[in-house]
């Protein structure tokens, strides 16, 4: 296996186990014959990869300018209220992690968010409540 498989392997680990643990990084480093520092360096470079455990579902609320102009901050506040956590935190039941993110390319449906890999646009606080209910 070549080094260019690295990002894909890290992503696969995250998809499978929700985050990339020290053990997983060590294992990947061994497989690719790379110093573990390289694996750590790549893992921590990207905002969608995480070394700390995340919830079963990850909410990414967009905070970039076009969403902000359409009350994006109010949507982030609605999630905080709904889940009782701040950006960067995970609910105590492990159901959701909540992150702020930059433009997700859905500005024509602003304000927008991703829950896992799915986009939800034209959000309102009520709509957010409904959407979150559909996740286990």
């Amino acid at each position, binding site marked *: 296996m070549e080094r*260019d498989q690295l990002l894909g392997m890290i992503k696969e680990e995250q998809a499978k186990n929700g985050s990339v643990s020290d053990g997983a990084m060590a294992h990947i480093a061994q497989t690719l014959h790379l110093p573990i520092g390289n694996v750590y360096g*790549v893992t921590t470079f*990207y905002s969608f990869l995480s070394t700390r455990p995340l919830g079963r579902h990850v909410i*990414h609320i967009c905070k970039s*300018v*076009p969403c902000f*102009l359409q009350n994006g901050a109010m949507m982030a506040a609605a999630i905080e209220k709904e889940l009782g956590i701040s950006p960067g935190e995970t609910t105590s039941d492990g159901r959701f992690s909540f992150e702020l993110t*930059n*433009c997700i390319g859905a500005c*024509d449906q602003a304000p927008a968010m991703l829950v896992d890999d799915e986009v939800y646009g034209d959000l309102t606080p009520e709509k957010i409540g409904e959407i979150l209910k559909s996740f286990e």
Partner: protein
Amino acid sequence: MPEKKILTKNCGKIDPGDVSTYEAEGGFKALEKTLRISPEEVIAEVKASGLRGRGGAGFPCGAKWELARKSKGDEKVLICNADEGEVGTFKDRYLLQHDPFSLMEGMAIAGYAIGAGKGYIYLRSEYHYLLEGLQKAIDQSKEKGYLKDLEIEIREGAGAYICGEESALMNSIEGKRGESRFRPPFPPESGLFEKPTIINNVETLVNVPHIIQNGSEWYGAMGTDESKGTKLFCVSGDVARPGVYEMELGCDLKELVMDLAGAKEIKMIQVGGSTGGIIPSDMLSTPLAYETILGSGAVMVFDQTRDVVDFTYRTMEFLNEESCGKCTPCREGTEVMVGVLGRLVNGEGVDGDMEVLEELSDTMKLSALCGLGQTAPVPVLDTLKYFRKDYENRISQSVFLRSLKTVNG
């Protein structure tokens, strides 16, 4: 000028999951034509068309291909840049969602022209929901025999704006941190895995079949002297009808945002994304073209109720977060700018803040390693130019607030 649908003519018309519906609209005819002429002739046609890169930098496409074609090395690489991380930009998503086959045809033609056997599509992870459809488009095009000479592989990012910058993108594919590279060497000479590499934006590649099919003369008749063809504009912000609009280059900004997208009482517009220039309301009749203002085609509209300094602060916060950190002018420059702008936003500005921003802007423009740091000062300098009063007010308010504190002891 109404909308002119060329790149988007199939969108909503064909089934993006069924290649035969693309064929029924004349799809892959340009590829067939391509294979009957020499790679050099294909390059000459693209050069003559005047097509320039749609990813933001506007480099002439044919000239770039020629460099790669002539470059020594038996293995050449074609990369389609589908990272689309620029704030306010969603046109590539629109094309991939509604007509992925046009990209397949564009890539097949580009691969033939430069002599690449291997192609990559670098897709941002925020667009993971497009992956399945895109893979299906590759598989179907391959089954039909359209990708005989080009093996296309999708590589996904993991959330990093800078990975849209071509040298960072190549580092990302190679399994390294997505940091920009020093240049030279330039990619057509030595790019991915040190092989001659062509990196083109999705929209650029989607232009190619139309140029081959209809000829460079037909194509060159659209647009202005330096900006040929049509462009997809992504209109967002304070408008009634946000969305993707395809217009001939050189079209009127005012017509796009007011007549088509329904904007009212405009204060300013940022064109080209987070590092794009600012157009104040009294300059709305600016034509959209490379020689004036264009970038990625993002058009963000701000109405009279919006605060300019808040906007600049938020934009700089984005650029600071997304700076890869490799070069000092960008890493530290965006950090200091966030500090100064944050001070202004919070009513803690001091005399001289505007001068600090201007001086730092000059340094960053001159010395940053890549386009991010070099163009990060643009929104700061443009707002300082057109809305200097807003900054002055922030500073005098800050001074006033402090004087109150002193009185109250």
